[in-house]
């Protein structure tokens, strides 16, 4: 079923195409409006990295404010003008920085930058397809994303500054332009940008799902797919089901802002005068927002999990432990992630009984997460671990996922959340479990598949430096924040100078800021490595990591269609590493079982009685041969 659509015409078309190039690729069609999934992946990656750097700079700006609330930095006024009068950030602009940092990181970097890059790159390559199901829609997906990025950044140029109600944009704050400067034009741009972004993400996700379901090569049944593909597939399903709900929420917010409706507004007095809104509920927006918002954090983390699983298996030279459990836990997370959104709302005034129910579902979702963690540890156990940069980042991802995941047990507990909600404990939690973990997953992917993308290798030593500085930096930044949260220090505070009890955290804040600056500087190592290696890096070999998956059978040089001639057939699962009896410590998916008689196990023939018979015959002849000897 999987091969029907691809093989018939496209394969044939390609063969003739390859001999003499029919349509010449112009610069425009190759680099700008490309419909080749590999180029689109690179476009997503470069845009994602650019957005990440911008969001990181924003975070450094507000970290400086938190570390030195009373100090003026004349340079800031030079660079930011009216947003930093006298060299000190303005309180509204501080909130705008926090808001846009969060928005860019969650949506533009960790959703589009991560899924967009690696789903596009790997789904066709690891499944054996010539391209996505709909290359044109894929191109549109990127350009909607690009437009959304431009609109989002353009909000820095409007008079009153960008949206500043927090990345969750709760109304009424975001709905009333008079409530704060950022709720004016900046918020309008934010909403436009998000609608474009969601359109992009839906087009991408529909493509990913249809490609995975319809365009797998011969022999690639679902249970032979690498975990990366499983993760991207389930992520795409999550996105398709959850993002439209955010559109609904956003559209109603636009109505409230611009057309005088009262979906989210009721009984409001602003500037001393009663507003004409009646009958709406701010809680409704929170329900709609978090119905996307919670699946969103899994949209962010699941691709990172998939990438880390793959990278760790390759570099441990061991099959991923409990492949089926890994897939089922991903499915479990996918399903459960739709019924846990209320844990963001325990103290919003939502009916407390609902809070109790959401607490139960939330703590259930910890079980598949725990299973994944243990399986990763078991994958490392008795491996033969190659420390590539990608491997280090995958390990970092696991470490962050454990550290940040454990604090989720506190926050998922409604009773404990009463005192922890919206404090720095939450900031520490999600920055570790979804921020740092997901970005490490993404970086692992970049280091691992860089040869596939650019045909060259990245510098490993610089990668090591980048890893250790970032890894240590992230822990130094986020670990102390837990204790601030336990002291009741709220997030999104412009300064902690107004509270006697919070002043003692100033030294910790200064420390965190310097750790953040160090980690930010370490990213220069990455950027230099990335750009340098893109043009002058060492040329890669066909299969630099000695991996099993299909993408490493595709030629190094890129062309639209991925494989010359016929697409390779798949005979086995992707994790036959260090199989006893095999010559090498890896057996690519394209090697038939008939060529590896010495390493086959009865397990390989679970649904293949004929094969099992042949295998039994072969082993018995081997045995008798030995006896003869």
């Amino acid at each position, binding site marked *: 079923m999987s091969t029907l659509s691809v093989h018939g015409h496209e394969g044939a078309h390609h063969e003739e195409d390859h001999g003499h190039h029919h349509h010449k690729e112009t610069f425009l069609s190759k680099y700008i409006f490309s419909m080749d999934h590999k180029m689109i992946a690179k476009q997503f990656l470069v845009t994602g990295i650019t957005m990440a750097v911008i969001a990181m700079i924003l975070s450094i700006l507000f970290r400086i404010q938190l570390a030195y609330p009373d100090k003026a930095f004349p340079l800031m006024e030079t660079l930011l003008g009216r947003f930093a009068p006298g060299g000190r950030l303005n*309180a509204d602009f501080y*909130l705008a920085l926090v808001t846009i940092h969060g928005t860019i990181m969650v949506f533009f970097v960790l959703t589009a930058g991560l899924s967009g890059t690696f789903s596009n790159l790997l789904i066709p390559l690891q499944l054996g397809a010539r391209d996505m199901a709909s290359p044109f829609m894929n191109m549109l997906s990127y350009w909607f994303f690009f437009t959304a990025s431009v609109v989002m950044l353009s909000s820095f140029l409007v008079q009153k500054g960008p949206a500043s109600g927090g990345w969750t944009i709760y109304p009424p704050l975001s709905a009333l332009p008079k409530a704060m400067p950022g709720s004016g034009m900046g918020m309008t741009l934010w909403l436009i940008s998000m609608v474009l972004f969601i359109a992009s993400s839906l087009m991408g996700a529909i493509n990913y799902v249809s490609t995975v379901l319809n365009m797998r090569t011969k022999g690639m049944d679902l249970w032979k797919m690498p975990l990366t593909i499983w993760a991207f597939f389930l992520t795409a399903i999550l996105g398709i089901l959850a993002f439209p709900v955010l559109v609904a929420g956003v559209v109603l917010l636009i109505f409230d802002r611009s057309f005088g409706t009262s979906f989210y507004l009721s009984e409001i007095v602003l500037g001393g005068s009663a507003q004409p809104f009646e009958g709406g509920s701010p809680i409704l927006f929170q329900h709609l927002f978090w119905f996307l918002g919670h699946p969103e954090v899994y949209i962010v983390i699941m691709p990172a999990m998939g990438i880390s699983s793959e990278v760790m298996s390759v570099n441990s030279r061991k099959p991923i432990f409990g492949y089926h459990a890994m897939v089922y836990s991903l499915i479990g997370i996918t399903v459960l992630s739709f019924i846990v959104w209320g844990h963001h709302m325990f103290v919003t005034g939502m009916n407390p009984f609902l809070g109790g129910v959401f607490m139960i579902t939330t703590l259930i979702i*910890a079980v598949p997460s725990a299973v994944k963690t243990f399986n990763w540890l078991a994958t490392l*156990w008795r491996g033969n*671990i190659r420390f590539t940069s990608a491997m280090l980042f995958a390990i970092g991802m696991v470490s962050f996922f*454990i550290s940040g995941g454990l604090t989720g047990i506190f926050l998922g507990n409604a009773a404990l959340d009463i005192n922890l909600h919206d404090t720095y404990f939450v900031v520490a939690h999600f920055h570790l479990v979804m921020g740092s973990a997901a970005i490490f997953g993404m970086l692992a992917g970049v280091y691992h598949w860089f040869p596939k993308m650019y045909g060259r290798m990245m510098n490993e030593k610089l990668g090591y430096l980048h890893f250790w500085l970032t890894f240590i930096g992230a822990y130094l930044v986020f670990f102390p924040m837990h204790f601030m949260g336990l002291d*009741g220090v709220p997030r999104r505070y412009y300064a902690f100078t107004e509270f006697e009890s919070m002043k003692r955290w100033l030294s910790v804040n200064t420390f965190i800021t310097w750790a953040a600056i160090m980690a930010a500087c370490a990213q220069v190592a990455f950027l230099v490595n990335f750009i340098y290696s893109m043009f002058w890096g060492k040329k890669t070999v066909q299969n630099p990591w000695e991996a099993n998956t299909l993408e490493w059978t595709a030629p190094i040089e890129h062309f639209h269609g991925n494989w010359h001639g016929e697409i390779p057939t798949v005979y086995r699962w992707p994790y036959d590493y260090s199989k006893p009896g095999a010559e090498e410590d890896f057996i690519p998916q394209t090697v038939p079982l008939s060529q590896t008689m010495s390493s086959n196990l009865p397990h390989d023939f679970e649904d293949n009685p004929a094969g099992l018979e042949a295998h039994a015959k072969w082993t018995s002849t081997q045995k008798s041969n030995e006896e003869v000897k």
Partner: protein
Amino acid sequence: MLSVLAAFLLLGTNMLMAQDATKDTAATASSGDATPSVWLAPGYYILLFVIVCFVVGIVGKILRVYDLTQQIQNKKPINWHNVMGICCIIFLIVGMYGAYWSFAVQGAMILPESASAHGVKIDEMFWTTTVLTVIVFVITQILLFGFLFRYRYSEKRRGHFLPHNNTIEKVWTIAPAIVLTILVIFGFFTWQQITNTIDAKGEQASINVDITGHQFAWELRYPGTDGRLGETNYKLVSGSNKVGVDFKDKFSYDDLQADTMYLPVHKSIKLNIHAQDVIHSVYMPHFRVQLNAVPGLPTYFKFTPTITTAEMRRKVGDPKFEYIVYCNKICGAAHYNMQRVVRVVEESEYQAWLAQQKPYLTDQIKKDLKFAEVKPVAKQNRLALNN
């Protein structure tokens, strides 16, 4: 190459000296010509960063040269797998010590014991969860980095082919499930107890206190002698009637306004939470109390303070310690400074304080509403008499 490095270091030190010197001049110089001083400090840091980059580059080259010479001499080049394995084990040890230090030093700075009855249960749960998670944290991180060191790459070895093991997988699915179930059950009942708080029959009625958030302050309203708060209506909010008390409701006549939230110790308090403009959040961390203030959705939180301010001052050893209520939901520019002092006092002190508070029904409002002079005056007298 080393001389280049030395030159850069020297330059850096020179710059540092120069920086120190210019700092003084910058401080004394007025705002006249600001351009050089604007760029000087950042320029120094940028230069420092560039130097660090050079050093990194040079170290990289040195390593490469070393590697190449080793290869020429047919010796083994640096085994980076070993280096990284050792880095992992160092990170584990130093990191564990760092975590311990953080727990010891910063952990000592967290909130003092709960000053409310329900908070004690929350704290118990918190410490149980902390112990469990710290154990899991330590074990898993040790395993993670320990495995990395122990099973680092060696040409002589092969990985152990272990695709799955159903028994152990079942164990580590069921074990966390059981632990989490226990936590869920306790959490669920604690949560129910905290939030299902309608005054039970026979129980003494809670003291109603209204707290209303607006940009950027909290307004407090206490019931007068009748023990009941009057109705409010957002349409009545004005400069003189800050929370929109509806004076058609006679219970409102003796409602009192206050600047500080005084609470009698060991008395059940029902905090009625309102917001006027945007969402705020009433956060009183010492009492483990938090609930959002949502416009159009009045909510309440019932709790019983158990430790007076004076007692808590002794406990934390800070004579200036105050309980505070502050805003914990982003609400605009001055979100970071929206606080009221909370004082938990003995009943007698509470009554004495209450007697001194001014009623919401001010002379100005009386004039605005054309109230007959008689009624409020009588009320005032009654209040005075009762005390």
